[in-house]
C-alpha cells in the first residue's frame, strides 16, 4: 500500500460532524410546539361578509372549480344583490391567490391558518367568514 496516495484529510474531516452532537436540536416537538408562519402566508380564506358583494369573480377565475357561490340568508349586506357568498372546496384549492387578486371589494383574503383535520370530508367545504 502506498501511504502517499491515502487521502488522510478525506478520511478524518467527515468526523467533524460529531460536533453537531453538542449543538441545540433544530427540530420542534409537534404538536406541543408549532412553527410560527409568516405574516403573508397563504392559508385558509377569510371573507369579510359585510363587504362581500357576491359578484362571483372568484368563482370565475378559479381554474380548479374549487369555489361555489352559495346563497345565504343571514349576514348578508345590502350591496350583495346575488345573495351568495363563496364556498371553498379545500380538496380542490391550490392556494394560488387569484380569487383574492380579483375580489373587487377586497373582502376575500388568505389568512395564516393552515391546519384542518377532520374525519368528515364535507368539512373541507369551507365558508370563509369574518376574521
Amino acid at each position, binding site marked *: 500500500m502506498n501511504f502517499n496516495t491515502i*487521502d488522510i484529510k478525506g*478520511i478524518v474531516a*467527515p468526523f467533524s*460532524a460529531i460536533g453537531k452532537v453538542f449543538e441545540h436540536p433544530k427540530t420542534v416537538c409537534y404538536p406541543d410546539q408549532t412553527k410560527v*408562519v*409568516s405574516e403573508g402566508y*397563504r392559508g385558509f380564506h377569510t371573507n369579510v361578509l359585510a363587504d362581500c358583494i357576491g359578484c362571483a369573480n372568484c368563482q370565475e377565475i378559479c381554474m380548479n372549480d374549487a369555489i361555489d357561490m352559495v346563497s345565504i340568508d343571514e349576514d348578508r349586506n345590502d350591496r350583495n344583490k346575488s345573495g351568495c357568498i363563496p364556498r371553498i372546496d379545500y380538496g380542490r384549492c391550490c392556494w394560488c391567490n387569484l380569487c383574492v387578486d*380579483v375580489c373587487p371589494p377586497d373582502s376575500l383574503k388568505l389568512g395564516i391558518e393552515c391546519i384542518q383535520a377532520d374525519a368528515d370530508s364535507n368539512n373541507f367545504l369551507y365558508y370563509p367568514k369574518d376574521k
Partner: protein
Amino acid sequence: MDNKLIKIYHGPQHPGITGNMSVELDLLGETIKRARTHVGYLHRGFEKLIERRTVIQAFTIVCRLCVPEPDPNEENFARAVEGLVGLEISDRAKYIRVMVQEMSRIAAQMLWMGGQSGSIGMGTVGQWSLYDRDLILDLFEELTGGRVYHMYTYPGGVRRDLPDGFLGRLSELLDYFDKKLPKYDSIFFDNATFKQRAMGVGVICKDEALQNGYVGQALRGCGIKRDVRRDNPYLVYDKLEFEIPTYDGCDVYSRAMVRRAEIKESIKILRQVIEQMPAEGLIMQKIPKHRKFKLPKDDIYVASESARGEFGYYMAGDGSEKIRRMQVKGPSLIHGYTLLENLLVDEELSNVALIMNSLGICPPEIER
C-alpha cells in the same frame, strides 16, 4: 447459468430513484448490461392543461412542473407572455426575479445534495442540507406566502413587494451559507468515501455531450462553459459578475463539484442583487383583466438557466385569451433517456442511484 441475464426494475418505488420513474435493468451478476428508462407513473398533461386555461389561470400550474425548483418555470412562463404581448418590466422587478431565481437555485442544490449523498448511504449530509434548504424556504414563505410552490413571478413583474427588512435577513442567511459550505466540504465534497464512489463513475464523452444537447452540470462537468445566464442573458444577469464553473473530470464527482461551485456563485450574485437593487420601482406593470388578457398571433421561445441546466418554453398565441400551444424543453428528457441509458451500461447496480442523482432528472418534467 453463468451468462443468464436477470431483469430487475429500479423504481418507481425505490429510495434511490429521483421521483416516480423506473429503470429496467438487465443484469449480469452485479453488472448492468442494458438499461431502459420507463416513465408514465406521473403523467399530468401540463402542456394540454395549459391550452385549456386563460393566460392568468395557466400561470398557477407551471410551477408544478418541477417540485425541487418551480421558479425557473414561473420565470420562463412570465417572460414568454411578456415577450408576446410586449410588456417591459421595471428594473426593481427584474432584480427581485433574479433574487428569486438564485434563491431557488441554492435551494435546489441543497435538495440535490441530500439526494446525492443519500444515494451512497450518507444520511447526515441530507439532514443538514434539507435543514438549510428549509431556511431558504422560510424566506420564500415570507416573500411569496408559499414554501414550495411560490406562484410569485407573474407576467408583468412580481406579485408582492419585499417585506420590511427582507434583504437584511437574506444577507444574514448568505453569511450563514458562507460559513456552512466548508462544513459541507468536510463531510461530503472532500469525503474520501464520496470521492472513491464518484470519481471515474458515470463518465460522459465530451463530444457526445455537445452532439446530444446535454445541458447544465452534465455539460459543465465535461469542461464546457455553457450557461444561458451568460450566453443569452435575461433579466439583469448581464449587469452581474459571476463565473461559470467547469470541471474536466466528466464523472459524477466533477458534476458534484460544479454544483458546489454554483452555490458559491449564487451567493455572490445574491450579494450583488442586495447591493444594486433599486429602492423604488413598479413591481407589477398594469396588465389586462383575466378574460381580456389576449395573446397575439405569434410565437416565442424563451430559456433560463435552472439549477439543472437550460430550461426552455415555447409558447404560441392565436389572438385569444388562451395559449394556443406551449411546450417545455427541460433537461430531464434528454438526461433521463439517452444519457442515463448510455451511462448505466457496464456500471455496477449500486451506482444507479449515484449516476441518476448527478444528472438532475425530474420525472414530472419528462411527463409534462
